[in-house]
């Protein structure tokens, strides 16, 4: 009559164990995927790396698959140039928007503004690409080029350039930077703010002297994430940077990027060329991994700070 608590493993506990196993499987799906991705990308690309020689592949300055020459330095340089320029444009704008959202705008208006920014994140990148090609590229040629010519009369550009790509990329990474920085700034404890104001600092001094420094880890994390997005962006960049695999000398020069080169040449590539593109994928992959490691480091430090 009295059910003991020492029942032996019932159906229920078998079910529990089974469920836990299933959940664990789900939990490692992402890890397995990353492993598979790594294996397939490296597996397909390593032969090309060995063929051209690792160093040649990395620092060779001539990317000309038709002539069997695979030097990826121009591509890496292109990706970096576009990404860094985008960050130069995007970081101040992003932080300004974050400050505007969390400290200046009223809550209701801020919600509308935030919605608008999130919308930027939702627009398909192809749309950005065509917008860039039709609007930004001519604008750089017609408005920026004459300005540059004041200094350097020989300057020349078609508009397809690092600058055009960076402008579009900056817009594309804004949502990441704004929303994460805004979170970081709003989560600075109210006491800091009050303490600063109580000391007679005005709002501007409080923002630049207390809030932004206190939120710096979060802001940094948002920048790193934004950078990851910028490096990985493909379809938009493809259309607006000109895809010229030559080391750029100025912001108005066209460049080829790692992602753009893969996307554009993959479909036509012959066997060895295809391997080389997978090897370009390896470089991209390693850059992203390094960035990830940095991000992990930052978020760890963030944990310590708080």
């Amino acid at each position: 009559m009295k059910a003991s608590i020492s029942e032996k493993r019932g159906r229920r506990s078998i079910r529990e164990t089974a469920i836990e196993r299933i959940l664990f499987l789900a939990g490692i799906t992402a890890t397995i995927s990353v492993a598979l991705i790594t294996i397939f990308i490296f597996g397909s690309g390593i032969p090309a790396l060995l063929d051209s020689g690792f160093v040649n592949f990395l620092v060779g300055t001539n990317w000309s698959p038709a002539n069997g020459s695979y030097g990826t330095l121009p591509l890496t340089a292109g990706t970096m140039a576009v990404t860094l320029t985008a960050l130069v444009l995007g970081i101040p704008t992003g932080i300004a928007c974050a400050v505007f959202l969390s400290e200046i705008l009223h809550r209701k208006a801020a919600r509308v503004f935030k919605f608008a920014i999130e919308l930027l994140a939702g627009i398909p990148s192809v749309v950005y690409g065509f917008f860039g090609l039709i609007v930004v590229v001519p604008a750089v040629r017609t408005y920026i080029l004459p300005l540059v010519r004041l200094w350097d009369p020989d300057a020349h550009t078609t508009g397809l350039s690092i600058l055009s790509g960076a402008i579009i990329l900056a817009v594309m990474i804004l949502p990441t930077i704004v929303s994460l920085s805004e979170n970081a700034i709003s989560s600075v404890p109210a006491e800091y703010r009050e303490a600063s104001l109580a000391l007679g600092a005005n709002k501007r001094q409080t923002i630049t002297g207390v809030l932004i420094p206190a939120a710096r880890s979060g802001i940094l994390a948002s920048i790193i994430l934004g950078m990851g997005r910028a490096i990985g962006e493909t379809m938009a960049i493809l259309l607006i940077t000109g895809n010229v695999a030559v080391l750029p000398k100025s912001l108005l020069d066209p460049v080829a990027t790692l992602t753009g080169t893969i996307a554009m040449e993959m479909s036509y590539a012959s066997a060895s060329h295809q391997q080389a593109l997978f090897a370009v994928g390896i470089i991209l992959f390693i850059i992203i991994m390094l960035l990830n490691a940095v991000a992990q480091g930052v978020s760890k430090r963030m944990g310590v700070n708080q």
Partner: protein
Amino acid sequence: MGNNSNAAMRPETQFEIRDLDLFYDKFQALHHVDMDILKNRVTALIGPSGCGKSTFIRTLNRMNDLIPIVKITGSVKFDGTDIFGRDCDVIALRKKVGMVFQKPNPFPKTVYENIVYGPRIHGEKNKRKLDELVEMSLKQVALWDEVKDRLHKPALGLSGGQQQRLCIARCLAVEPEVILMDEPTSALDPVATLKIEELMSSLRERYTIVIVTHNMQQAGRISDFTSFFLNGEVIETDHTDAIFSNPSNSKTEEYITGRFG
């Protein structure tokens, strides 16, 4: 069954705790606890904050399993079975040893769904039986009249005291043998507290109750036995009258007379 409530007979032991040590990682929260908790009696655990009494009561139905860093040595026997033993089914244990928490924690469901949650999990599907169970449980905690018209409204809409009684009713619906109460009235106002205390008096006939309380008057009013905890050790356990009138340990006396804590 009836003979158990006969005070003349020596009641059976419900929990037999021997040499219980509990660690949060490296911090030792319980030291060599030895205690017998008797069936169909109310046992109160008193002591200053952080003395380990909540930790202890949560050990009795293995709620500490939720905290990964907890390590336990020693033995706790429930009806003669070691609850940390290999053959112990923690779910069956918790079914028999219910718990009421410091803050009322009704589920974000309706009053009705809160009560039938336990029975359903344990396999009761019959709608009429569930209805009966709801009515019976709510009557036991004197909540029926207050909520019978809003059984299908969210439980979070009840007042704090009502929520706590609902939680007790929810616990009763599973038909446990033991009810563990971890400061059940600390979040409630005096009127609601009084109602809960009355409720406990009515439940003592049929259940073994273990209650953690900060309030010594409460311990004095409702419990048969009282156990005094200090820094993770049980200083003494005795009949409540004896503890309050004539404690054998000077520390107990100091605490009871309000010298510290």
